[in-house]
């Protein structure tokens, strides 16, 4: 029970963080048709910027400043890079973001080095929020949940209650029509790209010190966010939400399960599998399988439900 509840909470934290990334990615993807490969790079930049700012003036200003900076960087990249490639087609746009990701991936260690940063949780939040049976639940996790939920509610309100939000929603379902309504589509694109980047940056700010801030963090998260998008269904925010939480929970639980396949077989009375290739395979622990899980789920989803959980479009 204790294990279950704590894993639930940890999975929820991780899942919400994933959704902060995948929501921006989904908005950019559905509106602009661009799969932003550099999205996770903004997450990484968020963490590094926050670290640097917190060294100078502390964590709290960083929480505000870093995402705004990332948002501006995102908007500039859209305005002066992505827009140029737009006429060449979606593949060129995607490849441009791949280039951006590659360069950021190398610029970061160029500036900060390859070792993980000493990006600490702010002392104000460095205490135990509550103790569940014997396990402590850190306050910072609670803070992460709070920030994520706060941002999501804000995003929801913007999308449903404001004029720009309605335009964005219209663009989600009828991408060709918005231009005809007389809106400045390029400006909306730049805004969405910038806000998406800022959201990713914010995720980096609050995730960087909870997990790790190092040059490999972008790629590690990036590929999982793609899985979220595919599993949730292309262009569906609701799907991305469900998939983010689902994957967050599954991965958290898997890591914590210390059984091997052989153990499971033994439970049902099959304990005499000889060593050898098959026997070796069965000695793999579930926790070791955790990194594979998101991708396995994606493959299974594609076989049995190619549209994804809530996808409306085929591609």
């Amino acid at each position: 029970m204790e294990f279950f509840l704590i894993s639930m909470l940890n999975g929820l934290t991780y899942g919400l963080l994933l959704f902060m990334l995948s929501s921006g990615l989904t908005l950019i993807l559905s509106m602009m048709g661009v799969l932003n490969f550099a999205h996770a790079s903004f997450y990484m930049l968020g963490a590094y910027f926050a670290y640097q700012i917190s060294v100078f003036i502390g964590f709290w200003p960083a929480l505000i400043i870093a995402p705004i900076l990332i948002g501006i960087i995102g908007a500039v990249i859209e305005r002066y890079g992505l827009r140029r490639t737009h006429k060449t087609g979606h593949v060129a746009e995607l490849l441009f973001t791949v280039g951006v990701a590659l360069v950021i991936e190398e610029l970061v260690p160029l500036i900060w080095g390859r070792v993980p940063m000493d990006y600490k949780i702010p002392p104000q939040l460095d205490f135990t929020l509550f103790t569940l049976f014997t396990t402590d639940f850190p306050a910072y996790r609670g803070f992460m949940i709070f920030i994520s939920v706060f941002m999501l509610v804000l995003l929801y309100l913007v999308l449903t209650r404001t004029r720009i939000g309605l335009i964005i929603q219209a663009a989600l379902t009828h991408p060709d029509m918005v231009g005809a309504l007389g809106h400045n589509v390029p400006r909306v694109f730049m805004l969405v790209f910038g806000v998406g980047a800022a959201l990713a940056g914010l995720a980096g700010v609050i995730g960087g010190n909870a997990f790790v801030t190092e040059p490999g963090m972008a790629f590690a998260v990036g590929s999982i966010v793609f899985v979220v998008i595919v599993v949730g269904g292309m262009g569906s925010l609701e799907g991305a939400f469900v998939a983010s939480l689902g994957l967050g929970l599954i991965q958290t639980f898997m890591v914590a399960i210390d059984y091997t396949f052989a153990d499971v077989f033994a439970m049902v009375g099959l304990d005499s599998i000889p060593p050898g290739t098959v026997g070796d395979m069965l000695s793999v622990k579930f926790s070791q399988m955790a990194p594979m899980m998101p991708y396995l789920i994606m493959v299974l989803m594609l076989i049995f439900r190619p549209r994804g959980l809530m996808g409306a479009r085929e591609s």
Partner: protein
Amino acid sequence: MSDIKAISIAEVDKGMSGIRRWVFWIIAVVAPLILPLIFDSSYAISMMSQMGIAIIFALSYNMLLGNSGLLSFGHAVYFGLGGYFVIHALNAIDAGKFYFPVTFLPLLGGLGGLIFGISFGYVSTKRAGVTFAMISMGIGELMFAASSVLPIFGGEAGVSSNRVTGTGLFGINYGPPIQIYYLIAGWAMVSALLIYALSLTPLGRMVNAVRDNPERAEFVGYNPQRVRFIILALSSIFAGIAGGLAAINYEIVSQEYLSANQSAMPLLMTYIGGTMHFFGPVLGAILVTFLQVVVGVYTKAWPLYMGIVFMIMVLFAPQGLAGLIMQHQPILRAGLGARLIPSYLYAMVSGLIMLLGIISLVEFIYHLSTEIHSGTEMTLFGISFDIASSFPWVITILLIAVGFFFFRRACSAISSSWNSALAEIKGSESHE
């Protein structure tokens, strides 16, 4: 620029005709045979072996990207699994479990690639475009994650073997690197020929049609998913052959073979070389490998340079090097090539100045961030100096600024000399 692009694409197939095509193929066959006689250092031979592997891998990749419009981020899966197939086969041969001539071992790699191409391709080719890109990446990550878990991949150390095994055909035992080079060169030629031939078949053309307009392909009787599936399976054979050759060459296969980096390599090579021409990926593979081996020795910032070059190509030259070369055909044919030379020289000199500045700047920062423990003195291009003083930095910034200023002017000089040449060609055409 749109004029220029239209010409270059139209020239793709009929660009080289008759005798010139034969000359091209003869060079392609003879050059790899005599190159090791000219560059006979072990350094050169190992680099050329690496190039041969890269060429097969890149050509296999372009069957997807250029010919089918499928952008894959997981092609290393087939490369790597082909490699694992061959390395395990080598070990089995060593242990006397079965006999198979090493010369033909890459075929087993191809088989490995094919098996996984069929099973994963069934899933991934259900979609095209951006979704395919994501799925291919997911499958790549799946296999990479699997390789650190499943014992058959040998964990982080990988699986190693010894290629000098069995008696070999005609006494060739693949001990000396030069024998390996010829093995790779031979397989590269066979693969290139097959991939080229494939592009001239009914399937080869339908693959282009599905790339251009999958919907219309459905209304002329083709199932686009099926077409994509078959081409992916075929392409994974060649990726597997490349992986198998790498296994024989390095005598070790590790996780690195399945990594995202390994998947990114053929993308970079193919795109930089040019996806719309058969020889584009070959050019890209040779160039990128050369830079990787040569530049990689001097600087750790190599991946950064690679990324910048890639981004510049995407922004300014999406047709790739091959496309840039082929664009000159109409001008060269009209005998107006000399007209472009002055502006090209101008651009080259100013570009080099700018490049010098950029490289210096990157290397300074790199030195500061990674090698600061060895002091602030460093040597670049044979010159030693202390980057604690401001002098080198000022020079660097100056180089970039001056280079950029003149490079911009050179670019407009290039475009005006192009326009005048094109205008003259058009003028002479309308006179006829």
